[in-house]
């Protein structure tokens, strides 16, 4: 490698320095999850694609990757759905609107929406897998004429853990959306389906030749959803999935997010299933 062909280091961007963005809105989604709406400085757009993530940091506490939950069609700010899982998210939970947090990104490849255009779109989301998938769902809803049918399968531990319940009700009532939800264990008041997410798939009315699917959920979910889709006759090339790993730096350097040869922060988090079928660490 010839270093002299590069820009001089002084001209290079500082990859690790965040911009200070402002929390504009905080809402409790469930016992463990919280919604944040964040505004970039000087009214700038984050400029992301569905399925991408940001590195969020609070000085003195830490930095971690979070999926962007809003569609790029939402202008002026972006949204996150954060599960309480450690020190950073504990501290984040105590923040009020007006607080400034560090943001780097957007990072990752995101969903290639061109591959979904003109097709029926099937979204399979388990638990907080709904957070990143919501960026695609709302993108499809805001660009209805570019896509076929929108089919959503959402599974959650319990009805208490369902996220974005206002929007779920809208999706349920929207005749243009084929919305299905199930919970592993429902409370006494739960009227809907009970069972794991794969129980939703056999009953779906799918135009197999013209449907593209995107999956996101806890690690254990993927292979069972894949089995269900395959037994339904779904072709591998119509399946995309967003994978979770520890994307510490976001810029393909730190090594934490690697799956075999692939840096999830560079080649993912959204993978075309045929590309990772033979990657043994992927699923």
């Amino acid at each position: 490698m010839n270093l002299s062909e590069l820009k001089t280091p002084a001209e290079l961007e500082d990859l690790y320095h965040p911009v200070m963005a402002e929390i504009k809105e905080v809402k409790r989604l469930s016992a463990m999850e919280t919604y944040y709406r964040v505004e970039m400085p000087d009214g700038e757009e984050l400029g992301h694609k569905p399925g991408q993530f940001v590195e969020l940091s609070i000085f003195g506490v830490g930095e971690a990757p979070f999926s962007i939950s809003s569609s790029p069609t939402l202008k002026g700010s972006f949204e996150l759905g954060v599960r309480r899982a450690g020190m950073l998210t504990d501290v984040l939970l105590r923040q009020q609107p007006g607080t400034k947090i560090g943001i780097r990104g957007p990072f990752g490849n995101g969903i290639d929406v061109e591959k979904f255009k003109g097709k029926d779109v099937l979204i399979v989301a388990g638990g907080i897998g709904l957070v990143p998938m919501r960026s695609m769902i709302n993108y499809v809803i805001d660009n209805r004429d570019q896509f076929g049918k929108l089919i959503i399968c959402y599974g959650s531990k319990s009805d208490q853990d369902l996220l974005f319940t206002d929007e779920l009700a809208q999706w349920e009532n929207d005749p243009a959306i084929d919305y299905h939800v199930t919970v592993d264990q429902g409370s006494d008041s739960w009227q809907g389906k009970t069972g794991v997410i794969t129980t939703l798939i056999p009953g779906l009315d799918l135009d197999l030749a013209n449907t593209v699917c995107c999956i996101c959920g806890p690690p254990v979910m993927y292979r069972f959803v894949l089995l269900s889709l395959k037994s339904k006759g779904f072709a591998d090339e119509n399946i995309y999935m967003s994978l979770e790993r520890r994307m510490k730096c976001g810029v393909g350097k730190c090594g934490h997010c690697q799956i075999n040869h692939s840096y999830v922060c560079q080649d993912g988090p959204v993978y075309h299933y045929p590309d990772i079928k033979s990657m043994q660490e992927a699923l």
Partner: protein
Amino acid sequence: MVQFYLEGDRVSEFVAHLMKQKPVYAPHRKGQKSFSFEKTENAEDVVLDYVRTMHSIKKFFLPPKEDLLHFDLTKNESEPVEIPMSEAIFLGVHSYDLAAVGRLDYNFTVGSPEKNYLTRRQNAIFIGVSFEPDKYHFSGSVGIRPEDNTGCDIFLTKLFDGYVLEILTDKGRELMEGLSLPAHDAGKPATGHFHQHIFVPQAKLSEVMEHSYDNPVWEETAEKCVGCGTCNLVCPTCYCFNVEENVDITATKGSRERHWDGCMLRKFSEVAGGEVFRESLASRQRHRIFRKFKYISDQTGQPWCVGCGRCTTYCTAGISIVSIVNRLIGDYERAAVAPI
């Protein structure tokens, strides 16, 4: 090319001549058998005839600990850290360590070029020295000979009583101005032979690795391995890091600090919620070896192992990277001859 003769007795004079121009980092003796690259304060402390240092010169370009930014908690503000430009001479570098710098150059320029590494790296001057392979070196098997001077501005080849000094670049020529050395008209001695070998080239190794994913050697190695990550820390081409916050005692100021991390450590692949994606030591050993001979190598055509032998030398459990790789080669070849 003009060759000069640097008499053994004049090495200190040569080092002092360099020190007058720029800071000189060179091998120093730390114990009977241990050496370390240090900033030279006394020319006499430099040891050019050494086996290997525990850490390569990687530590100067990717420091074990480094502040990425400084923050002020009272104002919720941060400022970038000034990265010192290293106008320094790295003296006494073995060919495998310079090859490793070339590998890191790739890692830190591909995709998003990294300011921190490249700023430190850009103005480095290298003076290489030939080495006598010990029982752990195997760089010859990955195409790196003891007399390779690739990337050097000046190269020294060990003679019985001194060194043949070759000037390879304009930078090297400038450094030598003002120091008069006699020309060396005779030849250069052949460097010693290696005691350890990997028996197939990288092109074939990639194929071997392709068929070695489920080889029992990973489990067998894991039975000995204690998962300490020493092999990662001493590897001159390992560059993975973690980032943590440091808050000072006043709780008002601090830094975001990165430090070396290693894929052999369990927490390396852990995500929020506790899922660990390479839970077994066997899978971590495989990842380490594939990182050196398959993953990046398939993209670049080069092994990311430079054959320095450090991971084997310093392994607390006596695990040998050469033995692992040769075992994979043997198993692959046997399976090819007599498919089971």
